[in-house]
């Protein structure tokens, strides 16, 4: 079973809210100093699931990402967790592509990689949350897709997939090759082992440029984007919380209940 996982490296979403800053003029999110970027949360679940499938069914896992040189760190982490190969897609003309542009670059890279049974993406990226790269990639490659995957069982060349719904799950059967977008319910990602980290640190990561893949450059980059960002700012919340205090927490609790009653909230 050969699996390709598409990951995105993002700014750590768990930084304290006060460290999150936007440059409204440039319409950019500023990266805080001394905070290492991370693999986008659902992509880490995708990596874990690919490794778990490989442990049972064998095969090879290739990780790909479109991004800057610094994304090598995240690719190395995937290798350290147990993936076999990692490819960085990096070229000036890839920059500022939207989800559809990224999907086109990934599609071209995957055509070059060749054989695969499953492509995995995250259901949503932690930063810009376009919610569309994975499904657009499926469309670009003409593959069936299952979104928001919570469980997977392999049966020959078919997969039994559980997909999240608002009020439960839905079970569908899909033939490989196919594309899956992964949700966090599926697993808890492992930490890389020390041995894995050592091995990954010795590995050379290939970098593919636009000339290494077959891509129409007019369909990628900011000029091809179908949406234009016109404004970016941080929401303001007027914190005017009234703290209820008393001799003891029990008394404060009673006071709170009374207050909610007075306000006719309950």
């Amino acid at each position, binding site marked *: 079973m050969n699996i390709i996982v598409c990951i995105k490296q993002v700014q750590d979403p768990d930084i304290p809210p006060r460290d999150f800053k936007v440059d409204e003029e440039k319409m950019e999110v500023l990266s805080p100093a001394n905070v290492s970027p991370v693999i986008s949360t659902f992509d880490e679940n995708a990596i874990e699931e690919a490794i778990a499938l490989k442990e049972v069914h064998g095969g090879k896992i290739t990780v790909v990402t479109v991004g800057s040189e610094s994304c090598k760190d995240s690719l190395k982490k995937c290798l350290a967790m147990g993936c076999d190969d990692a490819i960085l897609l990096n070229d000036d003309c890839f920059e500022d592509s939207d989800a559809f542009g990224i999907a086109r670059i990934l599609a071209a890279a995957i055509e070059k990689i060749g054989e695969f049974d499953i492509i995995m993406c995250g259901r949503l990226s*932690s930063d810009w949350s376009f919610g569309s790269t994975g499904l657009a990639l499926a469309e670009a490659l003409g593959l069936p897709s299952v979104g928001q995957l919570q469980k997977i069982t392999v049966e020959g060349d078919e997969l039994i997939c559980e997909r999240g719904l608002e009020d439960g799950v839905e079970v*569908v059967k899909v033939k490989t090759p196919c594309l899956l977008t992964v949700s966090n319910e599926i697993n808890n990602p492992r930490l890389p082992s020390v041995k894995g980290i050592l091995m990954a640190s010795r590995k050379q990561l290939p970098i593919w440029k636009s000339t290494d893949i077959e891509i129409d450059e007019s369909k990628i980059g900011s000029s091809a984007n179908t949406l234009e960002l016109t404004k970016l700012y941080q929401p303001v919340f007027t914190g005017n919380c009234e703290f209820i205090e008393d001799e003891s927490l029990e008394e404060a609790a009673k006071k709170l209940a009374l207050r909610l009653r007075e306000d006719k909230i*309950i």
Partner: protein
Amino acid sequence: MSKDVLILAESVEDKLALISSELLGIGRKLADDLGGDLIAVILGSEGTKELSKGLISLGADKVIVGESDIFDGYTNSFYLEGIDAAVRESSPHTFLVANTSVGRDIAPRIAFRHNASYAHDCTELSYEDEKLCAIRPVWGGSAISHVKSKTENLSIASLRPKALPMADIIEGRTGDLVELNISIESGETLMSFLEAKKVQSEGVRLEDAEIVVSGGRGLGGAENFSHLEKLGKVLKAAVGASRAAVDAGWVPTQMQVGQTGKIVSPNLYIAVGISGAMQHMVGAGPSKNIVAINTDADAPIFQRARYGIVGDYKKVLPALTEKFEELLQS
């Protein structure tokens, strides 16, 4: 270019989903702005046609119905072809879906296929020079983006639930009903629907609840959710959770409130042991009154709360529950 607006309507247990009503509300407004028609497409098994009257009374000028066995249970492949057929038939200016498990699974593929723009999880929609403009919270809600479609083709957006008001019902409104021409055979697909496993929530549904009591990592263990359930019972509230509590395996994922969980809009939201991360507040933010119980006075949740108690929930909750019980009995 067309001036029509198409929306994807959905049904829940043979009734029109509430979110579809929100789509019709904004869809009507957008169609009027352009001077075009509002068209609704709905797919489902036999009997789905019955919902078209409701769609028309909520503002649709035309309803495209796709009734077929292949739409009995959702599969991406069949719905994609069905909705693609509706998009081609109506060739609208704008196509709106709800950010639901169906809407978000279809719209990106349709958008890519048609070279359309796609704005995900929007909280507001309008036009500027007949181009679709959207407000879209990004970075888990830490930033708000405004985007504008650049295409001469179709513009597509998904609407966040509870962001916009529902359409009003207008009795006696008339409209057309068209049946969708689809020629997909179930044999042709690479995918098939096996079953839906629904999780029945006891009591009030989280999305509909007037009061929600929600627990996070601060509860410290699955067993401690019993404190919340007790409080929930007294208040006739639904019980929710943060993703941290779900990821820890303490509660099922259907209880998750937030960006990737449910959006709730109760009159009262009691957050216990929840720090108030932006991604959580995306779901809890629409609540009218937030009360937070947290040991950390600096927790961001207090910036969104009307009332707060700084302290261990284990001391606060029993007394709170008891007092509520007393007050509600009298």
